């Protein structure tokens, strides 16, 4: 059984204007996303800023109320639970935030920061809590003597360790890490990534790892979900996504990652996406990626491609799938709800995709 099932989750934010604060529009931050997370795995969540990856993460831990859809955690639908019933659940799901400078209260001592979750949930007495916090400090590679210090006395990497210790305090099953290393220097970044890996093994943790750095995500993830403008556009086992991306957006994202090797950097063909991500208030019709896609045809403007299973746990939503062989394509086309149903004539014949200018 999956630890977490996200089913058709939507999160819209109202845009209000005028004296009466009437709702004039809606930001479609997360729009009908379904994904499941198995116990002990790491699901990477990638996409550009504004694609809804952080909103999805926050909606899963119910820091945000979903507009629609279900979040099933350990077989229980938690999408409608009130604050009181949510509290015990908070022990099971914790977050590690991006900015280690902003996510720790500067007026509190480290011991209090890490110990507060224990106190809130009434675990142990003052003495045992102190011992537990000191143990946690050691677990994340800090020293128990740091108990009485303030956050400003620590470097960025050490602060992120404190953030990790706080998330671990209640022995959660699921940790949602939202860009946990993007504010850190490379040498420190690798320390935190290794730490997260060690902790996962030690405590059998399940991670949802949100990041925009595709190198980092590949390093930590078992499976990767790619989001674009609130939609899940591709979901795949990690290595497979890098070897044969199906969705052209994923292909472009991968080709934009700078390679620290001058010869290889010069040799490869880079797909530079033109323009910016469109507004999620009024997303493009059909496939949301079509205005920036180099393979886009008429069908992409009209019909939204469904998320299609190409086998091997590799799903993608695209009318012009890349890196898919003929046999798979035919099998998928025969299946109901396939892209073929949308418009047979617009489908590419060869697996490399059509060469539309």
């Amino acid at each position, binding site marked *: 059984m999956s630890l977490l099932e996200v089913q058709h989750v939507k999160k819209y934010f109202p845009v209000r204007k005028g004296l009466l604060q009437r709702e004039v529009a809606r930001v479609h931050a997360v729009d009908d996303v379904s994904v499941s997370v198995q116990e002990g795995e790491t699901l990477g969540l990638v996409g550009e800023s504004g694609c809804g990856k952080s909103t999805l993460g926050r909606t899963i831990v119910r820091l945000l109320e979903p507009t629609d859809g279900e979040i099933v955690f350990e077989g229980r639908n938690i999408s409608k639970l009130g604050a009181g019933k949510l509290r015990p659940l908070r022990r099971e799901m914790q977050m590690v935030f991006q900015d280690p400078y902003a996510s720790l209260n500067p007026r509190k001592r480290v011991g209090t920061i890490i110990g507060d979750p224990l106190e809130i949930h009434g675990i142990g007495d003052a003495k045992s809590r102190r011992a537990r916090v000191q143990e946690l400090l050691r677990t994340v590679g800090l020293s128990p003597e740091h108990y009485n210090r303030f956050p400003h006395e620590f470097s*960025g990497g050490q602060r992120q360790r404190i953030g990790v210790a706080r998330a671990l305090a209640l022995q959660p099953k699921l940790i949602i890490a939202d860009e946990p290393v993007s504010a850190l220097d490379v040498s420190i970044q*690798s320390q935190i990534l290794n730490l997260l890996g060690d902790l996962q093994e030690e405590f059998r943790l399940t991670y949802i790892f949100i990041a925009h750095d595709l190198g980092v995500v590949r390093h930590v993830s078992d499976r990767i979900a790619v989001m674009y403008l609130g939609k899940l556009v591709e979901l795949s086992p*990690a290595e497979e996504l890098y070897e044969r991306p199906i969705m052209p957006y994923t292909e472009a994202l991968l080709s934009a990652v*700078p390679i*620290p*090797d001058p010869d290889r950097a010069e040799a490869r063909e880079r797909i*530079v996406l033109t323009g*910016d991500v469109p507004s999620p208030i009024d997303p493009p019709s059909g496939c949301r990626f079509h205005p920036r896609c180099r393979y886009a045809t008429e069908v992409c403007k009209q019909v939204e491609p469904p998320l299609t299973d190409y086998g091997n746990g590799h799903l993608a939503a695209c009318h012009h799938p890349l890196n898919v062989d003929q046999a798979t394509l035919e099998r998928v086309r025969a299946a109901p709800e396939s892209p073929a149903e949308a418009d047979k004539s617009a489908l590419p014949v060869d697996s490399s995709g059509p060469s539309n200018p």
Partner: protein
Amino acid sequence: MADERLLEVRGLKVQFATEDGVVHAVDGVDFALDRGKVLGIVGESGSGKSVTAMTILGLTRDVNTRFEGEVIYKDRNLLDLPENEMQQYRGAEIGMIFQDPMTSLNPVYRVGDQIVEAIQAHEPVDKRKARRRAVELLRQVGIPNPESRVDDYPHQFSGGMRQRAMIAMALSCNPDVLIADEPTTALDVTIQAQIIELIDQLKDDFNSAVILITHDLGVVAEIADDLLVMYAGRVVEHGGKRPLFYDPQHPYTWGLLGSIPRLDRPRSERLHTIEGSPPSLIRLPQGCKFRPRCPHAFEKCLEEPPLENRVETPGHLDRCWLTVEAKRAVRDETIEGGEPAAA
């Protein structure tokens, strides 16, 4: 044609007096920049790369700052210039692109007016002419529909467009040297690729030279000609891009190369890490500044190694006592990162 030298920095040291003591932010930086070249300066936070750039522009001048060395721009030492003369260089001859396009533009002025202001500060042109030039610049940096976007406020621009507007402003007076301090750090990879390509192309269009400051080795691998690796205010390695990537000589450079999870290599089980954190710039360690974090340190490292050419390639300098053979023997393990993951 001989390369035209535009900028030369010699023995630059910058110290800030603070309540806690003297901060040795930059402690011995030398480099030269020729027209048409891109120099990449790589290092982590606190390595002195931004202070070096800001000092070239005269932005670190203060009663509590002490300078040593020279910043020679077209035969004049910029460090000696009085502030009013420096203003003729800053912006006009040497342009700067800052890291954060969200905070570097004034939110209450129209983008076009901010570019017009930059042009008029350095050149005696009337407002209409300056505005026409602003539109042209916005077009050159790839802002769609510049005639109307010139009247937008910064908040109406996306992050990538704001960075383009910043670049347009930096280019407004046709500078010979463009300093870009982490120009893509705040941007998404797809936008980063656009901006890097833009800087590379504009360098040729405007026939200028670029100093690109970044912590991302991937970015400099794309467009730099020469590289400078900085650590604790010092240059620890300096050379051409290829020698530096394919024959790196300093253990810190190896560590940087090994710490990045790379898409062009098999996935590793664990990442290489540089243990510990960078030293305090007030109380620097004795000898080699990287010694406390260096797995290869030995007795001699208590004495600071000079920045010298130790390899066959001329112009490839490093600051490490290990013999070249010893370095080549031990470095691969670090650079390759961790062991490849089991299938």
